[in-house]
C-alpha cells in the first residue's frame, strides 16, 4: 500500500475525528483546550473535505491601496499580490466636466482594501462568541450583535442568513 492509498483509506476516520474535536470544543465551551489556531485549521480542513472551500473564493488578501489610476472614471487602485483587482470610482464634477479623487474616494479604497482582514477577524470573533454566548447568558444586545456579525459574514460569502 502506498502512502497516498493509506491516506485515502484513513481519510473518513480523520474527518470524523476532526469533527469530534470541533464539536467537543463548541459543546464544552472550553476554547483553548486544543488551541485556537488548531481549531481553525480543523474547520478549514473539514470545509475543504466537504467541498465548502468556496467561501474563500475571493482574491486572497492582503489587499492594498496600490496608487492612483490614470484611466478616466477610476480613482484609487486596489491590489492583491502583484496585480490590480479593483478600482474605486472617482467623483465627477459637473462644473468642470472632470472626475476628481476626493477624500471619500480615498476612504472607500482604504475600506475596501481592509475587507479580507475585517472578514477574517469577524469570523474568528464569532467563533469565540458563539461558545461564550452558550454559557454566559449573553443579554439581548450581545446576542443581536453576534446575529448582525453573522449576517455580515453571510453577505460577504454570498449566502443568505
Amino acid at each position, binding site marked *: 500500500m502506498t502512502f497516498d492509498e493509506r491516506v485515502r483509506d484513513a481519510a473518513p476516520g480523520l474527518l470524523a475525528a476532526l469533527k469530534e474535536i470541533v464539536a467537543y470544543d463548541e459543546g464544552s465551551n472550553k476554547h483553548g483546550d486544543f488551541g485556537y489556531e488548531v481549531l481553525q485549521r480543523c474547520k478549514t480542513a473539514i470545509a475543504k473535505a466537504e467541498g465548502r472551500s468556496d467561501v474563500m473564493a475571493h482574491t486572497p488578501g492582503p489587499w492594498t491601496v496600490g496608487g492612483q489610476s490614470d484611466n478616466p472614471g477610476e480613482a484609487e487602485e486596489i491590489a492583491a499580490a502583484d496585480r490590480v483587482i479593483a478600482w474605486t470610482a472617482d467623483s465627477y464634477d459637473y462644473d468642470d466636466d472632470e472626475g476628481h479623487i476626493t477624500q*471619500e474616494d480615498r476612504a472607500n479604497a482604504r475600506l475596501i482594501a481592509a*475587507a479580507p482582514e475585517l472578514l477574517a477577524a469577524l469570523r474568528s470573533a464569532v467563533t469565540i462568541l458563539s461558545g461564550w454566548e452558550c454559557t454566559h447568558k449573553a443579554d439581548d444586545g450581545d446576542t443581536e450583535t453576534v446575529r448582525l456579525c453573522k449576517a455580515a459574514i453571510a453577505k*460577504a460569502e454570498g449566502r443568505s442568513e
Partner: protein
Amino acid sequence: MAAIQGSWRVTARGDDDPRYVQARQTDGEEFIVAKVWAGDDGDYESTARLVAAAPDLYAVCKLLFGCLGEVIEEHNEVAYSDLHMALMKAEGET
C-alpha cells in the same frame, strides 16, 4: 472623511464583464463605488461580493469591538488584535 456608508451591492453588465459595486444613497439614488476585475481567474464575482460587504463588515466589527471587545480579548488575544488591526487598516491608521 469617512467612506460611503449604507447598502453596497454588486451589479454586472454582462457575464464576462467587470463587476460594479454600487452604493445607494438615502434618497434612493445609486452610483458606482468601485469596479472589480481580476482578469480571467474567475474569482472576481466572489471578490466583488466581499467588496460590497465591506461597509457592513466594518460596521459590525466596530460594534463588536466596542461591545464585546473585552470578551474576545479575554478568550483570545490574537483574535482581539486581528480585529483591532483590521479596523485600523479600514480607518487608514496603519
